[in-house]
């Protein structure tokens, strides 16, 4: 009898708790959905405005254009002295080369730091970590002087070459974190199996680090794609402009009612990033969690 009573009470308590938790969950969802809307609204507004006629963009919160002006895109593409085809090709060249450079040079350095023994490793690693902190602005001027002397200004070399020299320590750090998780016994087994350190890098570490390489590739792709400061300094000729520089040109024409076109091209510039984000969301999230950065 008593047992039944206890069971009944426990059951009721559990029901009450479940109900409380269900309500809490519901509340949370409502809140998170509302917040998502606020977060995404600017992006949707941008997208909507890119299709709107000029007079509808401002003074209007609605997201549905009264008339879809595809012309914003077709005209925007050719609105600047050079067509966006040129800018996209330029951005693509810089991005692809930079990503390749980053992957090669950073994985080299990371492999050395994570797996090899050599004199001075601790010191170099500390120096590498310190470069994470250095603002680009601090090295900018001497680098500019240096590249100017080399005749590299107005070429892509100042944007690309540093990436082949492991200039972005973030990726080294990301890969070091990943390499360290691979069991060391694999290297040792490979050593006994007759592998040199070079072969171990190529035949063991790299194939096992594809997820980390993927993460690094995506991040570096997105950042280089969005990079503004370095192109701003090194690229003067509009023929060699990358997409972000081109977008800025729209701002100089402000007042001439080209907002629709400017938004249309802005949307297009974000498309690659969003696509990569959607496709590789998992890699990106995991990358941030393991490196604990950015």
């Amino acid at each position, binding site marked *: 009898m008593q047992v039944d009573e206890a069971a009944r009470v426990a059951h009721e308590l559990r029901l009450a708790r479940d109900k409380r938790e269900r309500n809490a969950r519901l509340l949370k969802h409502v809140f998170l959905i509302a917040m*998502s809307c606020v*977060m995404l609204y600017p*992006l949707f507004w941008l997208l909507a405005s890119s299709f709107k006629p000029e007079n509808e963009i401002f*003074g209007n*919160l609605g997201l549905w254009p009264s008339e879809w002006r595809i012309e914003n895109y077709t005209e925007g593409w050719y609105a600047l002295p050079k067509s966006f085809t040129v800018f996209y090709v330029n951005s693509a060249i810089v991005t692809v080369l930079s990503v390749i450079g980053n992957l090669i040079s950073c994985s080299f350095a990371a492999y050395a730091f994570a797996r090899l023994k*050599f004199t001075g490793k601790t010191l170099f690693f500390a120096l590498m970590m310190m470069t994470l902190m250095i603002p680009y602005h601090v090295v900018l001027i001497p680098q500019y002087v240096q590249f100017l002397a080399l005749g590299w200004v107005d070429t892509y070399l100042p944007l690309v070459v*540093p990436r082949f020299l*492991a200039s972005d320590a973030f990726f080294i750090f990301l890969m070091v974190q990943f390499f360290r998780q691979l069991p060391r016994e694999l290297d040792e087994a490979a050593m006994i199996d007759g592998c040199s350190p070079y072969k171990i890098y190529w035949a063991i570490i790299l194939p096992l680090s594809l997820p980390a390489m993927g993460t690094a590739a995506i991040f570096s792709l997105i950042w280089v794609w969005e990079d503004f400061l370095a192109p701003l300094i090194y690229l003067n000729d509009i023929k060699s402009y990358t997409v972000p520089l081109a977008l800025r040109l729209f701002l100089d024409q402000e007042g001439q009612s080209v907002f629709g076109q400017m938004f249309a091209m802005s949307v297009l510039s974000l498309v690659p990033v969003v696509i990569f984000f959607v496709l590789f969301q998992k890699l990106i999230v995991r990358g941030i969690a393991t490196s604990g950065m950015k």
Partner: protein
Amino acid sequence: MRRFFVRNAPGYVFLTPWFIGFFLLALGPILASLYLSFTRYDMVASPRWVGLDNFEYMFTRDRRFWKSLEVTFAYVALSVPARLAMALGVAMLLDKGLRTISLYRAIFYLPSLLGASIAIAILWRQLFTADGVVNQVLALVGIQGPGWITDPDTSLYTLVILAMWQFGSPMLIFLAGLRGIPKDLYEAAEIDGTRPWRRFTRITLPLLAPVIFFNLVLQTIEAFKTFSSAFIISNGTGAPADSLLFYTIYLFNEAFKFFRMGYASALAWVLLVIIAVFTAIAFFTSRYWVHYENDRD
């Protein structure tokens, strides 16, 4: 000697690109800019040694230098805590009791990924114009919004709000950190009848301290480096009335608009020192408030 070489060779070979990069792109330039900071240099004539003139001018007579420091510090002080609070709050909401967090996580992270782009800076500028979206929303609730980017009193807030909008990456790091807190600690506290707020201050915060610390250092450095969005929103000048004269913008303009490379180098070094000091303070004070789980060994 030969043995030393054989043992170390692979490490040095793999580090060669980094070595070159480190010396030519980091250490060399840092030292070069230290030298340049004691010179007057316009890129036409060769650098002329002026001793401490640049620094003397900077600290005693350059009102724009102080203004840019003020703007930058105000931005750091406002945006970093706001962003971290958002990140932690949302991370805690996402951490418990919800099974399908990945969609939310993606939505909240997306702005961080896009945020650095010029497109977003352009968008932001338009959102905060006098008849822009933000003021219209405010009008709906009967508030007459300010001019935002044209008003020196409010322009900085547009950038602070932009920073808050991009709370995604610290959020992800917090989420990973929260995952690392053993669930049984909360269960034990619940059985002991600990109230939720106390659970937060006594369990979550202390155990998350290393992650908070990490985020704080990182985000502070990031905030000091802010450039592109401020550059676009202020039309490259720091306008209006220098209210968006971020340190980096001031430096950039001194260097690449007025070609005062020596003075800009001095500015660069001061920035480096400021960031170094902040990082050092964070690290040296961290042991008083950050407790790592494996402190004992």
